[in-house]
């Protein structure tokens, strides 16, 4: 078993933090785990991405070229990384920051209005955790308790106040996806359905 993730967006959106949470949660659940940040100027506003590999044996390549899962936080990242997602893979995108879709019928796309949800909760910085929650709802590999433990671990000691806030945002993401089952379809269904790609565009718009 191996699961490869690419997480990409702007600096300041919590991209690297989210990657570390997934990687640490993987370790908590007994898997081998690896996280690599992208190089470059990743201060607020620049592009940021990271890659995570979880595996039940020693991780071979820590570099991810064809992810099983892509978590996408802005349009340039969608354009750059969604073509590389493995057929049958998963894309979770922040629909209220991205006005296009991957345009692929062989992957499952979940367009989640994570920014609106985080803003509405009064915690704009938690949109990364809303996306993590959405992933939890659609990919059973990681358990919520392991992700919770990971959030405790990855949050620096002086910011532990944010743990509860982050956990609420995580559950917001889970709940939203469960309440909107039609917003994402499985890769198999999508591939079988010629209208799948069109449906995805509709989802992204409908979620705004």
């Amino acid at each position, binding site marked *: 078993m191996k699961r490869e993730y690419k997480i990409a967006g702007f600096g300041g959106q919590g991209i690297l933090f989210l990657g570390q949470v997934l990687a640490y949660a993987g*370790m908590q659940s007994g898997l081998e785990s*690896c996280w*690599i*940040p992208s*190089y470059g100027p990743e201060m607020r506003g620049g592009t940021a991405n990271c890659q995570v590999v979880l595996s039940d044996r020693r991780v*071979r*390549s*820590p570099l991810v*070229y064809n992810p099983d899962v892509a978590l996408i936080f802005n349009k340039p990242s969608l354009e750059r990384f969604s073509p590389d997602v493995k057929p049958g893979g998963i894309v979770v995108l922040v629909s209220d920051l991205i006005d296009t879709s991957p345009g692929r019928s062989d992957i499952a796309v979940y367009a989640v209005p994570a920014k609106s949800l985080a803003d509405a909760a009064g915690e704009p910085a938690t949109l990364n955790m809303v996306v993590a929650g959405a992933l939890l709802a659609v990919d059973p590999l990681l358990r919520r308790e392991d992700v919770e433990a990971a959030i405790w671990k990855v949050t620096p000691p002086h910011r532990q106040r944010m743990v509860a806030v982050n956990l609420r945002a995580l559950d917001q993401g889970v709940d939203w996806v469960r309440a909107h089952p039609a917003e994402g379809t499985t890769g198999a269904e999508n591939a079988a359905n010629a209208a799948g790609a069109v449906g995805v565009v509709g989802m992204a718009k409908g979620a705004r």
Partner: protein
Amino acid sequence: MERTFMKGNEAIGEAAIRAGCRLYFGYPITPQNELLEYMAAHLPEAGGVFLQSESELAGISMLYGAVAAGKRAMISSSSPGISLMQEGLSFLASAELPGVIVNITRGGPGLGRITPAQSDYLQATKGGGHGDYNLIVLAPSSVQEMADLTTLAFELADKYRNPAMLLGDGIIGQMMETVTLPPAMDQGESKPWAATGCEGRERNLILSAPYTDQELMELNMRLQAKYARIKAAEQRAECEQMEDAEYGIVAFGISARLALAAVDDLRADGVKVGLIRPITLWPFPENAFRAYPKVRGYLVVEMNEGQMVQDVRLTVSDMVNGRVPGAAPTIRFLGHGGGYVPTATEIRERVMELARLLREAVGASEAVGAVRTASASGSVPAEGGRRTA
């Protein structure tokens, strides 16, 4: 044993503290700064001294002093900083002092950039400083090995009274991975040769320069005898799926991780390929190659313009020159300097190319052989006006 999740650079720091390192010197440079930060934060907690030196030259000289006093000590930097330390490394080797030096390589030459690279192989293994000396050079390919080989570097440095270098790269330094940390140990065995204050005993002298011509000759002979012992006892390599391999990939550090992914893919396609991953770059693990004389071709993969491949060629040419009967592998190279990272796909394609090349070579030599056999029996038909004698 304690399983955790750490950055490669931090794993070096924690392993060093647990290995009894209580003196650390360094000067900031990316991509090894997490190590400097880790030591600044945690070495004082362990009762040690973190000292940011005013320059790399000062830092390596501080290391000389610290290890001359019998302490376990370490310095770290990245490529341009390591260049500045070369004089000190030669002096440490000459004085037979056991410091640990960490080079988290960046792309060069010159100031270069922080992109990942493996272009300091030759500098690390062939000197860099002046004179006939060798560092023990260890090449981690995972965060786990960043920790394990740090421990080993301290042990080997003490055992042989020789400086040991950990040669990593920016990717392993920056990435986080699951790691089982080694248990804490003491500072190693006491060092009767160390300059610790001579009250009640004869004075210990630690010299990097002998007083006479004769002594310089003796020093060189002593060093070479020691290097021969290290070569005989300390070669380390990881060999994956080499038992039945027709082709071998040779790669160290992060390149070996990508090569291993390529091995998996190629094996799934039925290609008999394996990986030799040198862990000790010096001594180069020649024995690993000698163990597989049936390998027909090697692909050497590096993030440089072809450095370790020189050692592979030397090793193989020794084998071909009669020491290992029957061995005559073809060697190909894949790599670039300046921030290039090979992909598993690229490695896979180059192995397939090598396999094709060797198949064609065998085909050609069999055809030649067939003609020769036929000629000898005198049965080749006279075509195109050619007759056999």
